[in-house]
């Protein structure tokens, strides 16, 4: 089994190749079967590695030397340890469910086969990202998933808005990648290697290599990368726009897997982060700020997927918050449970959209619980899970994060609760507006409203079960559990030293407080959206704070003014200097006939060549001066 590790990422790649080449000739059923089959097979193969993984081993398989320079080399090889194995299970497991769901969701799309090809390619790159045994392979996967994300956001490319969303995701990710790449170069310079086995070898004395400043620099650069990929301030704006992609994509890439790559990166590099306390602090505040900031925006969004998108940003923030607090296991635990319930919520939302003939505005829904009973139940489960009602998965993982916050300081604890209560409020707002109250849908949509086919409801059911029981992965000792996940991860991820221990009674008390507050928040939402049957105002009618939130704090406009416009201006300015208009006229004149040509040529005679020669001569003088005077 262990010799077959290479096969796990190869299967989806094979799927991509077959589907990509046969996209035109394969019947849809066949394509869906291949697409799903590859992921299921990869999942089963991953499960097959359970034996050695559970006994605490780390498996590795070196395939060949990827690159060799005069003074460095990088291998192409895989490494499966407890951390990457769990990631692989999430990727292939949740991935397989979403593939099955897509078979139903995308059934009528004319580019159905391409969709599966891209999804398979995505899974390949994601597996490469978590399975690679060095940072360069991680980066290759990192770029690859970004590319697939770009392709899938813009999947319905006939819509220009969608293309812009894809482009934005791309830009933001590029900024992040730049940071990550520089971090990698710095790592290579300092340590002379990018292989985990050399960097993080047992007993390796990293501190001997550099000062705290070095580690702080490397980790900060990594965080820039992580912020891009995992949609943290200031690079989060792409994720809500990315909802333009088909809903299964939002579930797989923009909720369960790709966006968690940043957390994986931090966990993978814990040895660095531990030596950079400043970065951990940055991480903590960054995560907390993102969490609250995104949650407030979520309060005023009216697109069912946008609400979920901001909720994802907010939850990812919570994970970074936990990482910053040193609660690494809790962060990873939340990553796993979040993959379950957020995938569930997205797929549920997809089922709603599917049933409502493409409607996404929650103001045009309502009372759908009778029309879409199965979807309603699973959506309810997902909402309860994310809101943090015991014993659902989200409660357990979030509680462990909040507990870690309390250990740090009660203020952080309070802020953390604030973020999670906001989440509870907008999630129930969503639930109530969509499934309860009076129907506000137009007749046409309502007539055609229907429950989704089995291929869609089945994955929903599985994810619903996982959202209920996922919490038992790391059930707290307080409630008779044994922190299984924590013990399981211990060969790779070691929790930071606890500041001070919390007594059982305090722990019970905090837990009770959180649950009580959550229930109170649900009641508030109930009051507003069911008892008073409030319906969100039209965007144009929003005012004051509501308008600011509805317009997402105008961050997009701000970025446009601060970054996009100046770059364009710089490029245009350079254009005037370095690419004289004379020649532009010449270039563009091809179609405009003889008049343009003659005038262009006149301009050449006017001295374009003369100008060039002059610049050349000047340049030579400049070089002489540079070389011999300074």
């Amino acid at each position, binding site marked *: 089994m262990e010799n077959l590790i290479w096969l796990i990422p190869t299967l989806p790649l094979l799927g991509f190749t077959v589907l990509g080449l046969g996209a035109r000739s394969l019947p849809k059923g066949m394509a869906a079967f291949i697409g799903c089959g590859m992921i299921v097979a990869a999942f089963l193969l991953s499960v097959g590695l359970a034996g050695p993984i559970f006994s605490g081993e780390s498996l590795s398989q070196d395939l*060949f030397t*990827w690159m060799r320079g005069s003074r460095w080399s990088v291998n192409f090889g895989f490494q499966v340890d407890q951390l990457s194995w769990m990631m692989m299970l999430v990727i292939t497991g949740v991935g397989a469910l979403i593939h099955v769901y897509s078979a139903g969701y995308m059934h009528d799309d004319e580019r159905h086969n391409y969709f599966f090809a891209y999804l398979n390619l995505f899974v390949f790159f994601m597996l490469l990202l978590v399975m690679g045994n060095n940072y360069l392979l991680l980066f*290759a996967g990192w770029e690859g998933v970004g590319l697939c994300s770009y392709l899938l956001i813009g999947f319905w*490319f006939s819509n220009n808005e969608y293309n812009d969303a894809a482009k934005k995701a791309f830009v933001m990710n590029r900024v992040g990648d730049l940071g990550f790449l520089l971090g990698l*170069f710095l790592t290579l*310079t300092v340590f002379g290697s990018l292989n985990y086995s050399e960097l993080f070898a047992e007993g390796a004395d990293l501190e001997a290599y550099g000062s705290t400043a070095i580690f702080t620099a490397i980790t900060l650069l990594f965080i820039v990368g992580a912020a891009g990929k995992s949609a943290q301030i200031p690079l989060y704006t792409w994720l809500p726009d990315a909802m333009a992609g088909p809903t299964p994509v939002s579930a797989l890439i923009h909720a369960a897997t790709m966006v968690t790559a940043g957390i994986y990166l931090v966990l993978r590099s814990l040895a660095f982060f531990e030596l950079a306390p400043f970065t951990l602090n940055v991480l903590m505040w960054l995560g907390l700020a993102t969490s609250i900031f995104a949650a407030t925006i979520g309060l005023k969004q009216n697109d069912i997927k946008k609400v979920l998108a901001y909720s994802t940003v907010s939850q990812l923030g919570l994970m970074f918050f936990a990482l910053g607090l040193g609660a690494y296991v809790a962060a990873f635990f939340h990553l796993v449970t979040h993959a379950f319930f957020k995938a569930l919520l997205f797929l549920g939302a997809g089922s709603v959209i599917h049933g409502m003939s493409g409607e996404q505005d929650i103001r045009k829904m309502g009372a759908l619980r009778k029309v879409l009973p199965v979807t309603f139940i699973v959506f309810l489960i997902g909402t309860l899970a994310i809101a943090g009602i015991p014993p659902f998965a989200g409660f357990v993982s979030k509680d462990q994060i909040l507990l870690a916050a309390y250990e740090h300081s009660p203020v952080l604890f309070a802020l953390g609760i604030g973020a999670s209560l906001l989440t509870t409020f907008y999630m129930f707002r969503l639930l109530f507006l969509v499934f309860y109250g009076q129907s506000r849908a137009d007749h046409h949509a309502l007539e055609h409203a229907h429950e989704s086919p089995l291929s869609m409801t089945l994955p929903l059911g599985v994810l619903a079960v996982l959202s209920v029981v996922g919490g038992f992965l790391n059930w707290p000792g307080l409630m008779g559990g044994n922190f299984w996940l924590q013990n399981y991860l211990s060969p790779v991820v070691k929790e930071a030293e606890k500041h001070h221990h919390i007594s059982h009674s305090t722990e019970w008390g905090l837990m009770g407080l959180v649950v009580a507050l959550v229930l109170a928040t649900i009641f508030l939402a109930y009051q507003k959206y069911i008892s008073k049957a409030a319906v969100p105002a039209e965007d144009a009618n929003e005012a004051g704070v509501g308008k600011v939130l509805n317009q997402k704090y105008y961050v997009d406009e701000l970025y446009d003014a601060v970054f996009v416009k100046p770059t364009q201006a710089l*490029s245009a300015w350079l254009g005037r200097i370095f690419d004289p208009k004379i020649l532009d006229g010449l270039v563009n004149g091809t179609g405009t006939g003889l008049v343009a040509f003659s005038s262009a040529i006149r301009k050449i005679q006017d001295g374009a060549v003369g100008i*060039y*020669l002059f610049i050349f001569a000047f340049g*030579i003088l400049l070089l002489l001066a540079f070389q011999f005077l300074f």
Partner: protein
Amino acid sequence: MYPIIVLSVAGILSMFIGAFKLKKVALPAVLLATLAAFGSNLLPQNFNDTPLYSGMLQFDWFSIRYAAVMIAVTLVILILSRRYYRDAAEHLGDIYALFLFSVVGGMIMVGSMNLVMFFVGIEILSIPLYILAASERNNLLSNEAGLKYFLLGSFITVFMLLGIVLVYGTVGSFDFDAINSFVHSYNSSDELPMLFKVGVLLILVAFIFKISAAPFHFWSPDVYQGSPAVIMVFMATVAKTAAFGGAYRFLDACIGPMSDDFSVMFAVLAALTMSIGNLMALRQDSLKRLLAFSSVANAGYLMMGFIGLNEKPTDTTLYYMLVYSIANVIAIAVYLTVKESQGSGSIAGLRGLYQSKPLLTFCLVLAMLSLAGIPPLAGFVGKYAIFVEAIRDGYAWLVVIAAINSVLGIFYYFRVMRAAFEPAEGGPVQVPYVLGYSAVLVMCTLALLVLGIFPNLFFGIW
């Protein structure tokens, strides 16, 4: 040595073919000759590590490697030129002959061990290019490109000659070995005669011009834009490979230890070149002009390889040049197809390509991804290797600039990709089929993928 002979003879024969109007034979004959040149280049007898002909030429591993890349890329360009020259009535034999002569010049340049031979090589490389740039006789833009290239090229040649004269004046020899021992006879390069140093710099200026690096890059967008597309891609790939190879030969074999003196200058110029190239490429609507500026930007990355030349192999540069050439050839091939069917060479003209030609789109996408440096394609490996070497030489600031630049580059490469996926207003376009065209493109594309995942196929051979 053999490939120089083979291609020279083939070039002359090709001109005969033109004279006897045997148009149909021209391309197969030239392809055959190019293949023969490629093969003969790899013969063991071709190798020698002491200079031949009174110390003029040396076909060591370095020259053989560069020659192999140049001939291979020429071969692909010649195959693809079939589409372009399908309807060309006259002078086909002459045009092919000029291609071959130009490659011969390139090989002489990278193999030369004497400044005179060196100069002859650079001229044999350039003069056919001047003519080729203007070869589309009925197109004013092409005429203008040829003339402009010629004027500016001669201007720079004058400086290069002056440089050679100054070097000769101080050393008393044209021979690389003699010049090298002259440099070695001084303890530090500070003590070298001023005239010598100025001479060397003037020779380097010619290279900076040939590789279209700042501040002598102005000519290249205009000339590239005006030249026929097939010629343009030849200039951007083969001619540049020759220029880089020649520059290395000069820096390494001729001035040796002194080359470190120019590291800072090269670093600054590299930073300038890539920044200008990328920023300018951002605002281009014409695909050809975009590729021209991208060529400028890539010259910037490649120049990073000139830094700290003394203790590193030049493999990385050649690898980068090879994968850059392949990607460029693919892009131009797609451009030609689109131009033919749409009549427009703008990026927007690519719209609808995906609907009518998915395979071609696939090739274009991979080429763009490689140019943009996205792993695991070959372009990434090339950039990464060059960046790492620069970091090792202590030029971290340059790598930061280069990394920022490579991000900038991604934007316009992706604009091209995106356009190919957008639906066309007038529906899918029909493109006539040309024998072997797609096959060659797919092979090139696969090469990008394979070289990216197994770069040691390249690095390991030598």
